[in-house]
């Protein structure tokens, strides 16, 4: 199994979620994060004090998937999160040793 973690633009979240649900992904965990990258932030000015706010609000979505679904999920995310402009984000894939559903105690792919 894999843990896929993707950092995307916040307003793309709904689209990505729907696309994932269409290919059968049933669970997602979403975190609000701040992204620092090539895309630039903005400047704020308060009575002469200038602050460069160099992070951008992003959301991180995490999905545990079976090995065979991995490729499809990556594809789906990269399609639905795409705007083509800088700051679209990244997808990270990590190995996942074990999963367990707390309610039932199921483990492995059954628990996804």
């Amino acid at each position, binding site marked *: 199994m894999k843990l896929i973690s993707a950092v995307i633009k916040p*307003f793309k979240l*709904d689209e990505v979620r729907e696309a994932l649900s269409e290919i059968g992904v049933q669970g997602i965990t979403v975190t609000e994060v701040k992204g620092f990258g090539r895309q630039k932030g*903005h*400047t*704020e*000015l*308060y009575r002469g004090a200038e602050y460069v*706010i160099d992070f951008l609000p992003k959301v991180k979505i995490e999905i545990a998937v079976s090995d065979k679904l991995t490729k499809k999920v990556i594809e789906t995310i990269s399609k639905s999160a795409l705007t083509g402009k800088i700051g679209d984000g990244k997808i990270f894939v990590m190995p996942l040793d074990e999963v367990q559903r707390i309610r039932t105690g199921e483990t492995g792919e059954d628990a996804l």
Partner: protein
Amino acid sequence: MNKIFSKLGVIGLLSLFLLGFTQTGISNEVFDITKETVLVAEQDVLVVEAAVEEVPTINSGDTAWMIVATILVIVMAIPGLALFYGGLVRSKNMLSVLMQVFVTFSLMSLLWVIYGYSVAFSDGTGTPWGQMIAGGFGAAFLNGITPDSVSGTIPEFVFVTFQLTFAALTPALIVGGFAERIKFSGMLLFMTGWFTIVYLPICHMVWGGGLIAEMGAIDFAGGTVVHINAGVAALVLALLIGPRLGFGKEPMPPHNMPMTLIGAALLWAGWFGFNVGSELAADGVAGAVMINTQIAAAAAVLGWLLIETLQKGKASLLGGVSGAISGLVAITPACAVVGPMGAIILGFVASIFAYWACTSLKKAIGYDDSLDVFGIHGVAGIVGALGLAILMAPTFGGVGFDEGVSMASQFVIQAKSVGITIVWCAIATFVLYKIVNSVVGMRVSDESERTGLDTTSHGETAYHS
């Protein structure tokens, strides 16, 4: 474009219906005016300005109340309206809304002393015809007014400031129509124009002894001048500017409902300055206006929540406060002529209409009046302006009609006053939009809208840790 025109048509029809009801089309209207003026000249017209001509001694009690009433209307605008609106937008646009209300309020205050008061309340030097529409420039820069000038039983400076607050609040109400996508500079330009060619003439027509006053229309505290006016302008602009990006698709829930509650409560409290203050004195009528205002609002809260519970199963805070504002809007023109039970009925009914406008009508027409300025101020304002003709009847505990006036004829007069306001405001707003839009633009870029106006227009963020 076509779509917009067809939507504008709906408003046109609405107002034509109102005018049609009066059995005289807008064109006849124009020609009938001088005749009518003669007919109603002796009428004991209930207009605020009436008091202005009386014996010039200052009553300290009335003055004390009017100073406070003025401050209360200021509190309605800032922070009241600013928060009521601000809480309803997304957090990325919070400051832009606060800013729009705050700066509009400030700018209009200045324009009022520079030429507004003069145009609205001084006598013009023009033809009697022109006089029906607007005053003159004799009191520009408050020329000739001193601490000793008296208006009714209060210092004229107090009257000037009280009226200033109405003139500053009304344009600020419009902000709700185009929130979350307007260009700041375009807005300021538009507001300046709208103040000049919409607010001032309508104010003069209603309170400055002009056309609508002469018709015998009743608008005690500003149903037409303030609420219908702002509501119609917001609707027209919402149609012309178009919906927010993602409207109807992405969720756009209020980002801070407690702020909206604070705003609504301050509007409620401030409304006593608005309504009771319009009596321009601390007397028995003021007392009647006060109780009417309170219970119309209370009834409207329950009205909205009742229909909401019946239709959706839950009573919401946003429903409660929307109801309150609807009731307050509806009682505004009526507060001195209906009795307490009339006030309850009016508030209750107005909130049902406003509910319908904000939910069904809005969906049916498909405009994005971001914060329902039309649905609440426009619609409840119309309900109030028309409804008072019925509820002022003694049967409902009202003050009754002037000699020679029947419920039907008063209703016709009210409908005319509403129709004139709608048509005048809609046309002028349309023209102003076109001009300003081509000169500096009225809408921000898509990217700015996505990012939020707070950082892109004002270089600030509402909340940090």
